[in-house]
């Protein structure tokens, strides 16, 4: 994983204008309903070397894929171009790009420096305003890390045009699945948010479930049957070294999640058939019990400020969502619709809670406000579950499983508007995604 570390030697004047200072037409409000995707052109980044030219082609490709993948942008194919970008410093022929209705234009260059590092520069133009949007930016990184450079460029473009925080330079840890339903083999896997650069963190000797990133993305909590019983583990992403966190005899533990402090973990512990929530300091291993009810309490998730925990409980007779103080105490029910609610996950923006809902034989991914109001269902299928938020709180990734003996699980993503449902490409089946924070 560490080989993708990117050195940002120069972060030139990162977008210093406040978002509302933008003027002119080049602006997408992504909270609006159905919108017409914004047409953009991203010619291959130019280079004076063969190696650089190849990276320039691939980087432009990934940038375009990132942008079009949001559903907010539409790429204009190079065949339509009137102007050719042959030099990064030449003036832009706005009329040529206007003629093909490219509202945004991305140009860039790649050089390979003496140490073999890629030096990538780019500029973003508002074609119809006839001016640059934001400042040119230079990024430096290893050749191995070329996709990260591309994602960072795309993140800049996305942010400048939407005014939103970005999310392309991020990773997803998930459970890679192979084999038939009754002998499903499961391994922890990690990949870029777009499915590239997958690597495996565990073998398939034991069932593994529901990984979750630490707030800094360096560690992953998950549940494994390595001991023969479900127990919670913490794994270092860089080394794949793991250690068990909870191993009281006669108990099972699962559903571990980090607090925003990166040191506290909340999880479910099952003893004598009763599942409650516990809280552990992973430094000392000391744990305290947060709930004491004969009902099932599981699937916790911290609020971004770390003060509250939303979780799932069937104390009312069916699984519903509740919020309690992070140290335990009285819980307030927030889900009141028809059906069963589970796997609540607090948005990184703090404003919404994503959940799984089971109703009338169908499963949905939905969002509601933290007081339970304004519930909206974003998906429907035989089995959708386990939402995870993009770092900017605008996209949700989840597991979709198809029915029947040949049923298999895949990862999907959808905007919080309910638009832009897509399958996330993985080389095997996939489930239980957890989206990392934006990388440094």
């Amino acid at each position, binding site marked *: 994983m560490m080989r993708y570390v990117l050195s940002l030697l120069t972060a030139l004047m990162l977008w210093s204008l406040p978002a509302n200072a933008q003027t002119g037409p080049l602006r997408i409000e992504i909270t609006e309903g159905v919108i017409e995707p914004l047409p953009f052109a991203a010619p291959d980044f130019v280079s004076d070397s063969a190696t650089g030219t190849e990276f320039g082609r691939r980087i432009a490709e990934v940038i375009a894929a990132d942008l079009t993948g949001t559903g907010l942008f539409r790429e204009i194919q190079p065949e339509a171009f009137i102007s050719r970008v042959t030099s990064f410093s030449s003036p832009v022929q706005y009329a040529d790009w206007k003629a093909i209705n490219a509202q945004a234009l991305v140009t860039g260059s790649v050089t390979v420096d003496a140490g073999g590092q890629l030096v990538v520069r780019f500029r973003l133009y508002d074609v119809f305003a006839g001016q640059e949007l934001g400042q040119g930016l230079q990024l430096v990184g290893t050749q191995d890390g070329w996709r990260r450079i591309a994602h960072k460029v795309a993140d800049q473009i996305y942010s400048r045009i939407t005014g939103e925080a970005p999310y392309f330079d991020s990773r997803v840890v998930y459970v890679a699945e192979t084999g038939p339903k*009754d*002998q499903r083999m499961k391994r922890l896997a990690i990949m870029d948010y777009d499915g590239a650069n997958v690597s495996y963190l565990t073998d398939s000797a034991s069932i593994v479930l529901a990984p979750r990133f630490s707030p800094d993305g360096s560690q992953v909590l998950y*549940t494994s049957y390595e001991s023969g019983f479900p127990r919670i583990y913490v794994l270092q992403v860089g080394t794949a070294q793991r250690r068990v966190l909870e191993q009281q005899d006669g108990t099972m533990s699962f559903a571990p999640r980090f607090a925003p402090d990166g040191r506290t973990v909340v999880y479910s512990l099952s003893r004598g058939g009763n*599942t409650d929530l516990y809280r552990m300091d992973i430094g000392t291993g000391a744990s305290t019990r947060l709930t004491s009810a004969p009902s*099932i309490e599981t699937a916790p998730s911290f609020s971004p400020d770390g003060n509250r925990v939303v979780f799932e409980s069937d104390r009312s007779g069916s699984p519903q969502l509740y919020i309690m103080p992070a140290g335990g105490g009285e819980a307030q029910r927030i889900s009141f619709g028809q059906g069963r609610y*589970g796997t609540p996950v607090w948005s990184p923006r703090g404003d919404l809670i994503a959940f799984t809902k089971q109703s009338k034989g169908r499963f949905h991914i939905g969002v509601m406000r933290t007081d339970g109001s304004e519930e909206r269902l974003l998906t429907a299928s035989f089995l959708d579950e386990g939402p995870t938020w993009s770092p900017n709180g605008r996209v949700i990734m989840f597991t979709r499983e198809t029915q029947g003996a040949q*049923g298999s699980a895949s990862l999907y993503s959808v905007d919080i508007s309910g638009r832009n449902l897509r399958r996330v490409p993985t080389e095997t089946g996939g489930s239980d995604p957890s989206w990392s924070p934006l990388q440094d």
Partner: protein
Amino acid sequence: MTYLSKTLLLCAGLALAACSNPNRFDNATGADMNGSGMAGMAGSASDPTSPLYFQQSIGDRVLFAVDQSTLSPTAQATLDGQAQWLLTNTDYTAVIEGHADEQGTREYNLALGARRANSVQEYLVSRGIADNRLKVVSYGKERPIELCSDEACYSKNRRAVTVISVVPSS
């Protein structure tokens, strides 16, 4: 259901470690291991002291209603038989596996499977089995035994299976 006996035969043949680990599932062990030599080691289905007899004649599993962990009269009758067998065959311990159908979220189903396995454990203990001979594990919806996505299969997947092992209790 022949794969069940294969599993058991394999377990008996490999003894100890392989079977003490409940990280197994109903039909995952090698399907090509059904050698007659192993049958001798496991005892035959007609030998009432054999795990095979426990599995095939007494019944190693009980089924549950949707979302429930209460034991039906049928389930209790099966467990009475299991208890009787365990009282007689004191060299054996058991791991009780709780399972759920696929209609539920993963972690809720883990908790539900734990409830089911615990129901069976409590019942067996109430019938005189020392609780240190019984361990419980939940597989949630991770190990269905029937694969279709309707009630015919779900009803068989909502189960608790008592897996006999020859490991001495700790």
